């Protein structure tokens, strides 16, 4: 007998239909699976047999052949246990129903017949919906993540037996109710807030600008000066995730298998802080199955690289393409996949190997050569993509214990939101959302400055010894500062402030 059950596979974050065909023939008892499958699927043989047996059904004493079509696409995730088991039951007449053709089956089986959570449900369901599929039978633990999609029916099942009973009409399972994104959002409260960060007035202001314009930031300061704290607070002043953005980033997290299933959707902008010993592959994505890396997990959010010069040169240089295009292409033997990777880079570093260069109360013990070597670890092209440099110094005891109330993230965020709105209106239909992503033409159009401002800027370049590459960065940041002020034109004070965030270009670092 032959049975054919529908399921789905994933290539990157795009899904494609997979047909699980099961044929049972007279012959020596045995099990064969074909269709370019990986080890995890080959091993499904034992899981499926035990699950069927332990659920109280008869496993056929014949030759079983399973085929996963399309046969030329490599499949690796153990999500086909459930469709194969259903197929075997159908082909061996243990299960009689016609309705199974309406459903997409996804799920991994346990030996006891239980159905386990799988990775990548959300991108599969979104792709399947686009292709016109409406009904899904998925592990009950994945229901949260699937419940945010409108116009489909999701049936969560926890055992193979439940699934069979449901298909035969003996058990009624209600489709999972649609979850509301706004409700999920209210569930997550940020604990880090700028009101707990004492002092650091300039750094906070700079981060506000960075959040408003989507600018990448490099923080320079001695150890213990609060760089990490500032970076951790940074997402709290970023604009809220929109639902579309949330789905996009949830897809990536779902594929990578790092999604928190209790909420099921990413509700706040992610902050990823990979350790500096991280490999290039872990950062950009890759591996045998071309999984998304840290930079894709940081999509729509923040990638925080603490102690940037400690990362391997290789890893840092691979950031260049995504910083420019907002996507990363991961190429492997079997497939080439494009993952979105549109993030704000917040990097931190010490001013020198010992960390005390420029500190107010500690002596730096590094030779000038050592300092130069350390700073040279960051290549010019990479530095070119970082708009703002800020210096962060230790907070003094007086500042730390002062009673002055610091501004809360909420009120900073209100200003950021306003500035973002100005940018959204300005760039509607151009494919970009923030000042940081402006190209040359847009800069000519939106960053016009008066003759006096130009003269002043020229003067500043002379006096401060700024490098020429700073020019565009300064104008972009000045544009954001003007947007924060609600000013249409870029004025001299905006430019002056923007220049003050280019300290790495100044003479004293070289």
């Amino acid at each position: 007998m032959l049975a054919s059950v529908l399921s789905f596979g994933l290539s990157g974050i795009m899904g494609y239909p997979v047909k699980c065909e099961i044929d049972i023939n007279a012959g020596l008892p045995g099990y064969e699976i074909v269709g370019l499958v990986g080890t995890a699927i080959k091993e499904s043989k034992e899981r499926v047999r035990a699950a069927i047996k332990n659920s109280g059904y008869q496993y056929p004493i014949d030759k079983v052949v399973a085929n996963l079509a399309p046969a030329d696409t490599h499949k690796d995730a153990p999500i086909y246990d459930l469709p194969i088991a259903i197929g075997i039951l159908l082909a061996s007449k243990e299960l009689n129903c016609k309705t199974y053709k309406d459903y997409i089956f996804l799920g991994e089986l346990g030996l006891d017949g239980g159905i386990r959570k799988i990775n990548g449900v959300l991108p599969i369901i979104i792709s399947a919906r686009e292709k016109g599929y409406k009904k899904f039978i998925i592990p009950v633990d994945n229901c949260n993540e699937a419940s945010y999609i409108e116009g489909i029916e999701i049936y969560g099942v926890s055992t193979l037996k439940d699934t069979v009973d449901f298909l035969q009409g003996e058990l009624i399972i209600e489709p999972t109710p649609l979850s509301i994104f706004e409700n999920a959002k209210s569930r997550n409260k940020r604990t880090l807030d700028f009101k707990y960060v004492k002092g650091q007035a300039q750094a906070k202001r700079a981060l506000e600008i960075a959040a408003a314009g989507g600018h990448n930031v490099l923080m320079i300061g001695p150890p213990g000066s609060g760089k990490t704290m500032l970076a951790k607070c940074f997402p709290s002043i970023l604009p809220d995730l929109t639902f579309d953005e949330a789905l996009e980033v949830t897809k990536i997290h779902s594929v990578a298998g790092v999604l928190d299933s209790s909420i099921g959707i990413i509700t706040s902008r992610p902050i990823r802080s990979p350790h500096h010993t991280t490999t290039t592959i872990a950062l950009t994505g890759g591996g045998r199955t071309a999984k998304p890396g840290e930079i894709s997990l940081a999509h729509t959010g923040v990638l925080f690289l603490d102690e940037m010069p400690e990362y391997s040169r290789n890893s840092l240089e691979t950031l260049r393409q995504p910083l420019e295009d907002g996507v990363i292409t991961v190429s492997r033997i079997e497939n080439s996949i494009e993952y979105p990777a549109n993030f704000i880079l917040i990097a931190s570093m010490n001013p020198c190997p010992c960390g005390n260069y420029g500190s107010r109360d500690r002596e730096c013990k590094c030779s000038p050569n050592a300092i130069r070597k350390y700073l040279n670890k960051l290549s010019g092209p990479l530095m070119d993509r970082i708009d703002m440099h800020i210096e962060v110094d230790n907070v003094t005891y007086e500042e730390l214990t002062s009673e002055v109330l610091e501004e809360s993230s909420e009120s900073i965020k209100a200003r950021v939101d306003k500035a973002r709105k100005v940018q959204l209106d300005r760039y509607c239909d151009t494919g970009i959302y923030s000042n940081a992503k402006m190209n040359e033409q847009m800069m000519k159009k939106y960053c016009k400055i008066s003759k006096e401002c130009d003269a002043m800027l020229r003067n500043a370049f002379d006096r401060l010894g700024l490098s020429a590459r700073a020019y565009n960065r300064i104008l972009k940041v000045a544009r954001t500062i003007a947007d924060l002020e609600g000013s249409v034109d870029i004025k001299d004070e905006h430019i002056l402030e923007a220049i003050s965030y280019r300290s790495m270009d100044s003479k004293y670092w070289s």
Partner: protein
Amino acid sequence: MYTRSDKVILWLSQFEFVTYGAIEKILEEFDDLGVMFDNIIDYRKTLSSIFKPSEVEELYANLNIHTIDRLLSEYDKQGISIVTILSDRYPDNLKNIEKPPIVLYCKGDISLLKSEALGVVGTRRATRYGKDVGNKLVSQIASTGITIVSGLAEGIDTVAHRTTLDVHGKTIAVLGGGFGNIYPNSNQSLADEIVKDGGLLISEYKPSEPSLTYHFPIRNRIIAGLCDAVLIVEATEKSGSMHTKNFAIEYGKEVFAVPGRIGDIYSVGCNKIIANGQARVVMSAEDILQYFDRSASKTTNENAIQLTYEEQMIYDSLVGHEKHFDELVSELHIEAKVMSTLLMRLEIMRIITKLPGNFYKLSN
């Protein structure tokens, strides 16, 4: 332009077995090296008392002065000129030191060798204080026309050369290796600028010789010998600067030292030699200029600049102190964004200077 004696002495210095002592003995023995070379066959006996027989044979086997002419024209192409101890251009100052260099390789303006000069030395790891004071003193002294002599090392040496070039003064860099191996590498461009801007590089080593560690203390004797006084800006207790000081005292040169804070490791050396009377304390450039019988050139370019109320507040607050950005914000109650703008404006007007770590101070 080179006398026959110059060439002979250069010829001798090409042999590896010809030591400093050997040349000294030859100079004692013969009044005119040119005559000695022309009749060298007759002096076998004298030479045998100085060299081993095999070495004498080697000298006789290479009696060709044309190789030296070729060498000199080769040097000429590279912009290198030679001043030997027998030359008129050799500074008298140097002749009075112990073991004066026999051959000086020079690149740049040779006349500087005989000019009035101040040696400026100090630690390679200069602190902000050292760099600031060094810059201030050297710029005032160099602009009166006094030549600044230093060693092209990192730190204070670099400050001394760089500042001199900035005020269009004259500077001599004494190297611890050949011209082909400038140490540190990072100062290669500084060396080029010195030559280009009318300064002078000198070395007692052949252009191809490497910069070896033990060269540097020996090199310091030339710095001390070449100048009329030595200024030590910052120095640890045991350092090359202390060697230079010892040489200077030995040669009867005046030593000046910049006092530092007690406990500052880079000022211990200076404070100590001030305390034991080996060095005179420097409070301002005047102290040194007086020694040279000069006075600071009055540069009164104090253009009155009209500051705004807030800018004036920042200015007043910075008088006498370095302050951190955050300190200024909390002290003057000016918002951070406005403060950034004001500070940048003042910086562009060169009224204040930004220091590493977000500190600000008034410009000199």
